């Protein structure tokens, strides 16, 4: 694996698409030398010049181009969400562990996403769809707050041709024809053999816990449940300690870890 870049390299925004009221997807291409290749599940530190940098998972990898979906929750992410084609940012990376999709060869796949957690899972879904012969049945289960908060609705529809795609929302409007309830309820209708399935889970941590516990109860091995955890990533290289979670430095040892490692850490009130 090539070492990640420790200094931000210039990237230019080549497209911007609003996803929801507070979330947009931007595509970046190198303005000079590219960063080493990213794997699904890894993240970059994206620097809005003069404002600061934040960790953003890659939600698309196309050659040297990087796609990120960013939700405006603070000054930096708001600045990134507001970027338009032609604007420049600094990018460091790739950082962290990936989803490790190839290790799930032969297994049924369960991709469970809550809210913006679908973004880091998107490249994994695309990789699985591109190589269907390597895997068993592909299930994509997505929960969101409201119908308008669902990311990539057109893609979700397109994936239905080759995967079991189920969506649910917490609050329905009169036009919504999908399910209403928490994302774990969708597991009842997923197609998988729990003894030969690998799950990939990303979303708010209570949702991760509920999903992973439910999967274990159904017979999925904790080592075959991979979850993406989030703490305040800062340096990206395991030096500053901002992202420490017990014995883990999530920017280096995560963000993707197995449920075997994560479960006990998420039950501790403060680490």
């Amino acid at each position, binding site marked *: 694996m090539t070492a990640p870049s420790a200094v931000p390299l210039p990237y230019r925004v080549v497209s911007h698409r609003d996803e929801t009221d507070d979330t947009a997807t931007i595509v970046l291409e190198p303005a000079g030398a590219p960063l080493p290749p990213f794997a699904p599940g890894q993240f970059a530190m994206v620097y809005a010049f003069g404002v600061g940098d934040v960790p953003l998972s890659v939600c698309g990898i196309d050659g040297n181009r990087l796609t990120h979906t960013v939700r405006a929750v603070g000054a930096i992410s708001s600045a990134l969400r507001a970027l338009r084609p032609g604007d420049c940012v600094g990018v460091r990376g790739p950082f962290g562990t990936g989803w490790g999709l190839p290790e799930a060869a032969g297994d049924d796949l369960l991709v469970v996403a809550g809210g913006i957690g679908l973004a880091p899972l998107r490249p994994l879904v695309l990789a699985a769809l591109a190589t269907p012969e390597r895997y068993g049945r592909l299930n994509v289960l997505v929960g969101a707050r409201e119908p308008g908060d669902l990311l990539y609705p057109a893609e979700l529809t397109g994936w239905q041709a080759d995967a079991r795609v189920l969506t649910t929302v*917490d609050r329905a409007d009169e036009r919504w024809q999908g399910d209403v309830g928490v994302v774990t309820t969708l597991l009842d209708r997923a197609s998988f053999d729990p003894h030969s399935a690998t799950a990939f889970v990303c979303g708010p941590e209570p949702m991760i816990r509920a999903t992973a516990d439910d999967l274990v109860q159904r017979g999925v091995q904790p080592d075959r449940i991979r979850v993406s955890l989030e703490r305040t990533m800062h340096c990206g290289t395991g030096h500053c300690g901002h992202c420490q979670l017990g014995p883990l430095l999530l920017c280096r040892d995560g963000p993707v870890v197995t449920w075997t490692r994560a479960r006990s850490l998420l039950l501790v009130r403060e680490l």
Partner: protein
Amino acid sequence: MTTEASGFLATLAPAHRSRLLALAREVSFPAGVRLFEEDGRADRFWIVRSGSVALDIHVPGRRTAVVETLGEGELLGWSWLFEPYRWHLGARARSALLAAEFDAPKVREACVQDPGFGLAVNHGVAQVIARRLKATRTRLLDLYGPPDTGAAR
């Protein structure tokens, strides 16, 4: 998957499952039909074979709010097990629905006559209620809403 091996019926031992199903009759409903209304008499319940049901609450002055959807294998209705036997929610078929329908007084009577069966049914329904309570509490957290960390992100 079939309802015999999944969902609510999977919580019952085979003997209890058979005993319960012996009290069932197969029914179907077209999409859009209302199965019951809030505060109506809870004298039946169903196990969904196929299709989908929306549970809703009438909010005066606003549209009826769908609070949960149920699908294949799931228990539709538990108010029939507890006095005063009135529905807590309304229910509408969201698609063509096939279901096993049960006469609630007959099932309650069978539970009284055979305490082992009664315990199993009560335990199974309690699991359903606990699961829905947990799901409701999770939704109360509004997990997907705006974060309140205040971090500069």
